[in-house]
């Protein structure tokens, strides 16, 4: 997951001086356009159908292979992450094996509260959250299978309160997730409708 805002800002700083070069389908700033309509995400493991245009962030050093990140107004304000088919034993973020603080690796046998806790640790360890509160955890169909919906709020070290919703499921021992995280004021309520449409449209493959 690439919701690491503080770091994202810093990486952007690093790129700022010489960021004119872009590769692949990405524009000069590292974002490419996602048009409304069916779109294959997270290495082709899922297909979703957004109804508005999004900005697809170029993969950074911190991202894992099975993820993809989009934003409407910039990652400091809103972000949607897709994780498609993460294998048991792998983490949802790239990290040093000997780092003191780590996001737990996904295990196929994790219970829904454990999956929620894994996401919480990501925010605390990698995204600068100093407070994190679960506001809801409930069963929800995802990709046509029984999964979960995790709602939460967090306060980050930039003093901004953010809110998020994650919808996920473990299918054939692999983890599938779509997560929306945004500034609580305006940006979360403004984006959650589109997130719901995307989550409902998600199909395997």
């Amino acid at each position: 997951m690439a919701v690491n805002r503080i770091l994202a800002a810093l990486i952007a700083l690093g790129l700022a001086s010489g960021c004119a070069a872009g590769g692949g389908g990405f524009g000069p700033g590292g974002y490419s356009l996602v048009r409304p309509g069916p779109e294959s995400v997270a290495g082709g493991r899922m297909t979703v159908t957004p109804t508005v245009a999004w900005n697809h962030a170029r993969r950074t050093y911190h991202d894992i292979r099975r993820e993809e990140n989009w934003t409407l107004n910039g990652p400091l304000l809103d972000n949607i992450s897709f994780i498609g088919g993460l294998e048991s034993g792998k983490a949802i973020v790239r990290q040093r094996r000997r780092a003191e603080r780590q996001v737990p690796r996904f295990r196929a046998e994790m219970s829904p509260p454990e999956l929620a806790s894994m996401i919480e640790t990501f925010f605390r360890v990698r995204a600068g959250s100093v407070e994190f509160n679960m506001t809801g955890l409930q069963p929800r169909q995802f990709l046509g299978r029984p999964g979960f919906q995790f709602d939460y709020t967090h306060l980050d070290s930039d003093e901004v309160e953010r809110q998020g919703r994650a919808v996920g499921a473990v299918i054939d021992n692999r983890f599938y997730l779509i997560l929306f995280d945004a500034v609580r004021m305006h940006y979360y309520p403004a984006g959650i409708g589109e997130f719901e449409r995307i989550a409902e449209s998600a199909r395997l493959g």
Partner: protein
Amino acid sequence: MARLPLILVSAAALALGGCVQTRQYADVEFAPPQGDYDLVVMRPYVSVGVVTTGGLVEPRADWTEQARTNLLQALREQQAGRGGRTLVLENREGIQGVSPQDIANLERLFTAVGSSIVLHRYMGQYLPTKRRQGIDWTMGEDAVAFGRATGMEYALFLYAQDSFASTGRTAVQALGIVGCFIGFCAPQGGGGQGAYAALVDLRTGEVVWFNLLQTSSLLPGVRFGDIRTPEGAAQMVERLVGRMRAGRHVRERQGQ
């Protein structure tokens, strides 16, 4: 804390290069405020320091206070010239009808919004969905509620810093330039200004206009208007908010 991080401003300055630089962006439908309007300046931050020989910036309390008074006076006059009344919010308790908590939350929201504007407009992290959209960010319903509660039409977020080279620093600069003629070129930055201003239309909540100003000089002795003096402050206000341009659509319609 809820201020646009300095680090972004100074890094943007790198991207902009040296000398006097301003680059403004406006909402495509933006028309500069004109006529009878009320504008609130949200806890403006001003800091003035001296650059030591070694290149550190040492804050100067007296210069800062002087500059702050001058800048705000210049801003009041400049806005009055357009017909606007200016209220300067000195602290979070300073306005009727809105709690300090709500002011703080607006400031925090602006930290995120303003940083995003700098990142995605000034620092090359362009978002394809916002191409040719000018400034397309909002402060949302909370800004509208703030406007309704206070009767204000516009909010201005303002940040300005200035520094002056000490005598020793000027000498280092001079050496750096002289060195260029003998093959060892190490130009050193002297004093410089960095400032931004962001205008929020409280009737819609939209950030309608944003300007980033950077002046710096690698040449010794060059200065850009001393904001410790009323004239210099007026000059910075003129550069920062005085040359407000209308948005693209508005200009296109006017051009027809």
